[in-house]
């Protein structure tokens, strides 16, 4: 459903992505792992349309994404849950979820979807009227994912969702990602926490200084010696 071919991105003269290619199928969880500054966030931001690519093709659901705006990509079902959550701190939890449905034309069904999000994340229901900025990091991450789901995406891009979270919350996050995939949502997960990422993904790409150096089945990769040594601390 997502087909990226020979994607080149740079910041000024600095090349950040050097012609990477990868793909993702429906209901699949794919992870991009790699060290800091490998280009993971840049890949996701380029897919979401926040960053322009120099060249390369982004085909999503049969359409070409490269030339359309972020807002139009959201309409096509491609949503990014950005690094650092980026929730709206001065709005309530409920209003944040409403914003997630902003582009939808069927706004009558929005409350039903919010109910669905609340049953997925009961903590959010408890805090429905609370100002989002006053919640803990874990709760904010759940809200950011819930807000992303409100757009009814086909593909969700998750950028470093475990950043700064406690191990127990990270575990919960992994379960949530698996459950979403079971419901047919495709997920592209960019993570520095390779243990978590390889634990919940089907396939993985290892990114290093803007190149994909290895790829394959997540379970097999987590046992590969070079990956173990570099990313799993073994």
């Amino acid at each position: 459903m997502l087909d990226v071919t020979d994607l080149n991105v740079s910041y000024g003269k600095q090349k950040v992505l050097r012609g990477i290619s990868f793909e993702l199928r429906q209901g699949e969880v794919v992870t991009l792992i790699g060290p800091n500054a490998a280009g993971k966030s840049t890949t996701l931001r380029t897919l979401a349309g926040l960053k322009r690519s120099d060249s390369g093709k982004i085909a999503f659901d049969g359409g070409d994404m490269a030339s359309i705006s972020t807002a139009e990509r959201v309409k096509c079902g491609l949503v990014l849950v950005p690094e650092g959550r980026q929730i709206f701190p001065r709005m309530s939890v409920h209003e944040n979820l409403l914003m997630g449905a902003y582009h939808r034309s069927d706004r009558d069904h929005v409350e039903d979807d919010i109910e669905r999000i609340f049953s997925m994340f009961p903590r959010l229901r408890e805090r429905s009227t609370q100002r989002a900025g006053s919640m803990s990091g874990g709760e904010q991450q759940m809200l950011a994912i819930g807000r992303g789901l409100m757009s009814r995406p086909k593909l969700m891009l998750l950028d470093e969702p475990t950043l700064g979270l406690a191990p127990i919350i990270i575990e919960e996050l992994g379960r949530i990602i698996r459950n979403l995939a079971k419901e047919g949502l495709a997920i592209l997960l960019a993570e520095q926490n390779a243990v978590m990422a390889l634990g919940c993904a089907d396939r993985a790409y290892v990114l290093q200084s803007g190149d994909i150096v290895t790829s394959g089945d997540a379970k097999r990769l987590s046992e590969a010696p070079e990956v173990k040594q570099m990313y799993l601390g073994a």
Partner: protein
Amino acid sequence: MSQLIIGQMLNGVIVGSLYGIIALGVTLTFGLTGIVNFALGAFMMLGAYTTWYFYDVLGLPYALAVLGAVCAVSVVGYVSDRALFQFTRGNLVNGLLVSIGMISVFEALVLAAFTTTPKDLTYVLPGALNIAGIILPKIKIVVCVVFLAVIFGTYLALTRTWLGRAAFSYAQNPEAAALMGVHTGRLQTIVVVYSTALAGLGGGLYASMYSIEPTIGSGYILKAVEAAILAGVGSVIGALGGGIILGISENIGSVFLPSAFRDAYGLVFLIAILLVRPGGLFGDRP
């Protein structure tokens, strides 16, 4: 004495609501485009002159004249956004230069067309209410009520409507708003134009109370920026609150201290409040 003070407080509220309506435009424009539009004072002046022209020269009913003025000013606002302000998004200094340049152009044009002679509208709503010895002209009460209604309406729109929430979310985090599917460019234009419309309304109603000249906007825009800072930039209710606090402190200050320095009393208040609350009084409210 207490009558004098209460009377001055009410006057402060009325003047303050005028500061507030322009401050609202200042704060909205800043929140969405990152620039302080000092030309909003000039848009207010345009609103005042257009109202005068429609009402006194063309003989339209006053309400219609104000409505027409708001529309005319919005059109000028739209053209200024397409031609100039859209190139100064997020650039405070360029925005400042463009808006100050626009003040000169607008003032010069009005000066050329209508000279410096102050214009007075023929009485729109004569008469005054006498409430327990305090005399309040009816027109001032009506103007104040309209301003309050528009400001609260804007507040409701920002918190209850899709477009309003989009604007409020954009002010908090532009990138996240784009990720929600908000067409950010369009939204910025809408808010810039709405702010000029608010200033136009302010000018149109101002003209019913005071005489107008090409330079009336400059004093009011400074007060409006003061009010917006006092309140905490980004807050709608704060813009009103800040305007009213400023209006009251000027009027009460003038009772006890020389009224020649009335502009300073509000500034003293501004500094005092910022010392205690650097983010402004209502800094974290919509």
